[in-house]
């Protein structure tokens, strides 16, 4: 009964979102004032409906209602309750409902926190958002209905949630990512409405900025959690794989970063108006394109969703309708007035322009690398190639270098024209000292220096000094620092910390395959590794071979457990890596194959500074969140 109720509510939501997508436009453009509705009330109603629908899906999971096909495919009686709850968004259908929920949540936020006297403009933004929500609801109901029943004979037990998703980070990662993706709806709707109303650039940019920053914050957290999950769950010890799905999240992230920087300029100086509009459209478009690539099955990746060409077609249709529609409006809008504020090559505006060009070209290159295999296959009649990490790394490096150098000086620049560059020598000397200090620390810790890490570490020092020094120079009181500079300091310093992490981990990592039987030991780097024991364990829904491996480096002894689990419902095998984490290095063991009766292979890795990557990402997320929230207070 509850699933039918949830289904019904989803249909009511569909109808109301269609109303929301059409009525306000009739009121504004055809002047049927009698049809005027309260967009505040409607947005709250839509949100409540989708929440109820989502809750009924959660309920079906919690009570093990295997007559619901989606529950039967993704849950199991023996699944721990927490994962039953999280399994709700563990696959395609449920995650779409969550996505719609997130879009509705952003829309409510926009309606209630945007103070504009122009009611028609707000109604238009609301209406465009509702159209997208309607399209997603239609997609869900017609191709991916999570409430579909298996009748008349429901299975007695479900197939289980994919074992590698039975993990904390993975239960939190998708919602954060969906909130990030769906948040880009608001800047998109604002940009389209701004064209229709020929809004002043400064005005619409101020509406858009907080939402862009908040979506970017969620995207950052979502991507970082995904990377952390891949690191310990997939058992490879890597933190970024250039997998199509990772790229599908990375491209909108790059564009959202470009967008909020461009919006700062638009809001303060009234320039880059058209550019910001295009970026808003493309940030939204790439978030949909990512969804299309992942769920249509045209790209294969570690993130397998239930694949169905019909779904791909539907998403492509949504993408085509909204993006081509908005670009059509863009191409026929007469932007008329020439933007007035002039700026010189030394200005902050020009700095933002460079930042945007670099980010956008980087985003295009990554997108190109991701879909190139498809295009190649289409043109050569089925020959397949794959574009792997080497391509992306070669592309990324020069862009990251240029962006980092720019980031170091960016905060010193002034609007219009920077009068002096006298900060440069000091910035250079101080970065060099920080750089030497880091190198010294690395040498003390690891007895080794790698030239390959020097460029990245210098870059990180440059960004760090550029970020912290300017804050000191402004001579702000403590309170003013918190109020004015905290967000940017967090975000930019986070980037520096992330860069150090990437530089060190990519040069200083060590790995080795070893073969041991219990009681044996071997030497690796400065560690003595001892295979202590291996036991059979029984988990709630899996059996496991659990090995204890100890690391001893003279002063410290640590025991690390790594497991090979066989999940009972599906028979799938997963490797649980054992990780001893600290700020400076991770010891990482993953159990391999059972070669003979009691002889096992292990992969041992030492990953210095890898935590700094996620720490940096966390700071970036906090920084952009604070910056977004600050925008509300200002008004």
């Amino acid at each position, binding site marked *: 009964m509850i699933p039918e109720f949830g289904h019904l509510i989803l249909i009511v939501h569909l109808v109301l979102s269609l109303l929301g997508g059409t009525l306000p436009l009739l009121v504004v453009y055809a002047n049927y004032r009698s049809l005027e509705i309260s967009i505040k009330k409607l947005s709250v109603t839509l949100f409540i409906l989708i929440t109820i629908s989502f809750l009924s899906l959660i309920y079906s999971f919690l009570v093990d209602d295997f007559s619901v096909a989606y529950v039967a495919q993704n849950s199991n009686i023996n699944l721990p309750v927490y994962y039953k709850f999280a399994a709700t968004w563990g696959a395609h259908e449920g995650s779409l409902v969550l996505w719609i929920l997130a879009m509705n949540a952003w829309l409510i936020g926009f309606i209630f926190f945007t103070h504009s006297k122009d009611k028609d403009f707000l109604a238009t933004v609301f209406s465009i958002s509702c159209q997208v929500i309607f399209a997603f609801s239609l997609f869900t109901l017609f191709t991916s209905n999570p409430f579909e029943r298996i009748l008349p004979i429901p299975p007695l037990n479900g197939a289980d949630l994919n074992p590698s998703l039975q993990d904390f980070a993975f239960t939190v990662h998708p919602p954060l990512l969906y909130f990030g993706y769906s948040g880009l709806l608001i800047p998109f709707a604002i940009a389209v409405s701004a064209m229709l109303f020929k809004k002043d650039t400064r005005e619409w940019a101020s509406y858009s900025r907080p939402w862009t920053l908040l979506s970017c914050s969620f995207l950052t957290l979502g991507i970082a959690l995904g990377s952390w999950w891949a690191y310990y769950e997939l058992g490879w010890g890597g933190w970024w794989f250039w997998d199509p799905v990772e790229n599908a999240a990375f491209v909108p992230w790059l564009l959202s970063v470009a967008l909020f920087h461009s919006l700062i300029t638009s809001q303060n100086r009234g320039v880059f108006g058209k550019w910001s509009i295009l970026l808003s459209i493309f940030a939204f478009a790439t978030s949909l394109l990512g969804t299309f690539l992942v769920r249509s099955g*045209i790209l294969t990746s570690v993130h397998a969703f239930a694949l169905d060409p019909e779904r791909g077609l539907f998403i492509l249709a949504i993408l085509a309708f909204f993006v081509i529609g908005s670009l059509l409006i863009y191409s026929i809008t007469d932007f008329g007035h020439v933007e007035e504020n002039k700026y010189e090559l030394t200005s902050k505006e020009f700095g933002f322009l460079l930042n945007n060009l670099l980010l956008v070209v980087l985003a295009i290159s990554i997108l190109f690398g991701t879909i190139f295999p498809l295009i190649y296959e*289409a043109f050569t009649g089925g020959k397949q190639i794959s574009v792997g990490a080497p391509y992306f790394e070669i592309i990324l490096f020069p862009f990251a270098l240029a962006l980092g150098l720019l980031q170091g000086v960016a905060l010193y620049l002034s609007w219009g024209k920077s009068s002096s560059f006298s900060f440069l020598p000091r910035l250079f000397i101080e970065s060099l000292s920080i750089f030497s200090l880091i190198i010294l620390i690395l040498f003390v810790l690891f007895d080794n220096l790698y030239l390959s890490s020097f460029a990245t570490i210098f870059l990180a020092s440059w960004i760090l000094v550029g970020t912290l020094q300017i804050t000191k120079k402004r001579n702000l009181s403590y309170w003013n620092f918190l109020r004015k500079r905290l967000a940017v300091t967090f975000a930019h310093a986070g980037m520096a910390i992330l860069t150090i992490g990437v530089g060190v981990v990519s040069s200083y990592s060590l790995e080795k395959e070893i073969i041991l039987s219990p009681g044996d030991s071997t030497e690796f780097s400065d560690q003595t590794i001892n295979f202590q024991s291996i036991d059979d364990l029984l988990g709630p829904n899996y059996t496991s071979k659990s090995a204890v491996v100890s690391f001893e480096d003279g002063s410290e002894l640590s025991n690390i457990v790594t497991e090979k689990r066989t999940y009972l419902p599906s028979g799938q095998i997963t490797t649980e890596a054992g990780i001893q984490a600290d700020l400076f290095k991770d010891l990482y063991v993953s159990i391999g194959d059972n070669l003979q009766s009691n002889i096992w292979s292990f992969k041992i890795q030492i990953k210095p500074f890898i935590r700094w990557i996620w720490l940096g990402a966390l700071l970036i997320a906090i920084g952009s969140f604070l910056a977004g929230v600050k925008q509300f207070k200002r008004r």
Partner: protein
Amino acid sequence: MKKIIDALPLVVFASLIIVLFSFLSDKDDQLETALIDSSFPDFNLGSLSDESRLLTKQDIIKLPALINVWATWCIACRVEHPFLMKLKEESILTIYGLNYKDNKLKALDLLERDGNPFEFSIYDFEGRLAIDLGVYGAPETFFIDKNGLIRERHVGVIDERVWEEKFSKYLNE
């Protein structure tokens, strides 16, 4: 000139959509046709019921036949199970099972409980034969004619309607 530049994003994006669209629409055909009229791929895998018995292509002797990809974790497979049983009971043709990435004990349990429509089931835990066949997922059904050629493929549940529309015509050849 300015107008042309303003229309540029539209043109670029629209072409991208067209490329993606064309790809999406051929994709099916390519997959469908890749195996049609070719002979069944070679394999060397154990039998589900008897681990020591190694099965190869030469064991598929009773032709024409269906090869049905199934697993206990696959809910839709249980939906089509009664129909497969019916094909067997009415001796319409032989069905060989390809047990795909499954738990052996559970699979045998299921056959014991719900009946076994298969002449035998190939036990493909790692999905090796499934890769050669280009299997999307379970369930999938292939029709092999009396000369051992794959003639038809169906992704999804097989029932009376699918049988009539896609498969029965090959039986009467």
